[in-house]
């Protein structure tokens, strides 16, 4: 059975090496600072945690912030953990790319860029992947095509308390 | 040769041969030129067969149409960035004059000479006769031709071999 490392454990390990890197620690994840990301990831990969395998990389639009979620596995120790980074920048969120640490992040970062509009600095080939070049907007963002009838999320369901979106279209982005 | 079939065949094949040879000179596209060259070779092979030289005719198809035309195609496709056009140099006019003169001279000589024509029929079986002649009367030229082939093959390999990448040539 894979041991699911709590975010606090991972945060503890990271703090021993990089004291200021961790922002927050929850049972599911540890939130780290974006500018320390490469260091932290290299440490996670080569350190005692041995997270050599990057399961999944994805972005979440929290409306007030963009989060990138990393799920990692150690094959030799059979354990798993998750870290996150976050930014409140909306127009052009920029994060460091982890392709130098895990080459497997290549396509997943391109996917996140394509659908969520997140720029990964240091990515060797950051282009649209599913959509065509010149596609307007970032479709997985919650405010994509912010117009009536195309309201994202729960407002589609009658009687459901959805989160109110502010009038922010990103079609021109 | 007064056999109607042979006469018709001769004129048809002669027209094909000379016409395609002319087209080799006339067309602009080198690939088209090669196709006409093959057609010309096939015409010559047909002429051989009207001369009852069926072995040589078949060898003509095999070597010229099958092998040499392919070598020419290889020469074209192995030189990709070079021009694929079939243009003439500035020596065009002298060449026309010279080849016209040669044709006139040869034609005049062939008509004017009094050949000692024999009236024997065509060859019955040429392949075995050629084989016997090659290995009996012409054994020395035969061996020399074999050596020539070998030398040509080795020479071709050595010419195109790249000295700089001896190791890379292995793979």
């Amino acid at each position, binding site marked *: 059975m894979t041991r699911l490392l709590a975010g606090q454990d991972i945060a503890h390990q990271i703090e021993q090496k990089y004291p200021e890197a961790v922002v927050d620690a929850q049972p599911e994840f540890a939130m780290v600072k974006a500018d320390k990301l490469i260091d932290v990831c290299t440490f996670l990969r080569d350190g005692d945690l041995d997270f050599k395998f990057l399961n999944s990389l994805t972005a979440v639009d929290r409306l007030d912030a963009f989060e990138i979620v990393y799920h990692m596995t150690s094959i030799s120790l059979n354990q798993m953990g998750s870290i996150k980074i976050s930014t409140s920048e909306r127009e052009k969120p920029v994060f460091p790319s982890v392709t130098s640490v895990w080459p497997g992040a290549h396509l997943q970062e391109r996917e996140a860029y394509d659908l969520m509009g997140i720029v990964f600095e240091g990515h060797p080939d950051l282009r649209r992947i599913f959509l065509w070049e010149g596609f307007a907007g970032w479709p997985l963002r919650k405010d994509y095509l912010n117009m009536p009838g195309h309201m994202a999320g729960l407002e589609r369901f009658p009687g459901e308390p959805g989160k109110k979106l502010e009038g922010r279209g990103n079609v021109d982005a | 040769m007064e056999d109607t079939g042979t006469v018709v065949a001769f004129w048809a094949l002669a027209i094909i041969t000379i016409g395609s040879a002319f087209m080799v000179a006339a067309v602009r596209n080198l690939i088209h030129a090669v196709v006409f060259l093959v057609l010309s070779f096939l015409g010559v092979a047909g002429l051989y067969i009207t*001369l009852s030289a069926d072995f040589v005719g078949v060898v003509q198809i095999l070597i010229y149409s099958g092998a040499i035309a392919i*070598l020419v195609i290889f020469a074209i496709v192995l030189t990709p960035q070079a021009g694929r056009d079939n243009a003439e*140099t500035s020596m065009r006019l002298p*060449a026309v004059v010279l*080849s016209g003169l040669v044709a006139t001279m040869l034609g005049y000589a062939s008509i004017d000479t009094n050949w000692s024509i*024999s009236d024997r029929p065509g060859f019955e079986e040429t392949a075995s006769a050629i084989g016997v002649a090659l290995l009996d009367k012409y054994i020395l030229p035969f061996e020399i031709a074999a050596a*020539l082939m070998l030398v040509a093959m080795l020479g071709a390999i050595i010419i195109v071999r790249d000295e700089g990448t001896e190791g890379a040539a292995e793979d």
Partner: protein
Amino acid sequence: MSVDLEHYLMVGAILFAIGLYLALAKRNFVGVLMGIELMFNAANLTLIAFSRFVESESPIDGHVFVVFVVTVAAAEAAVALAIAVLLYRVRDTVDVDKANLLKW
């Protein structure tokens, strides 16, 4: 109407002239090569014609000679191909006018 030696010789002569023109006038190396092949063919045709028509003790000799010529032509074509490739590699062209290293 009949077909005689002179007819074949005329075809050979015209073929030879066209080949000569190609060899002299063509700019492309491959064009020159094709001209030479046509000249070989013209010579072969006359040889076979002589072998068929002319009085001789062993008429098959013409055919034997043609076999030798074909051999030489094959060897020549192989070497010419090699030269074309080398020329292209060294000079980046197969224009025979540009292959003038030995001009002076």
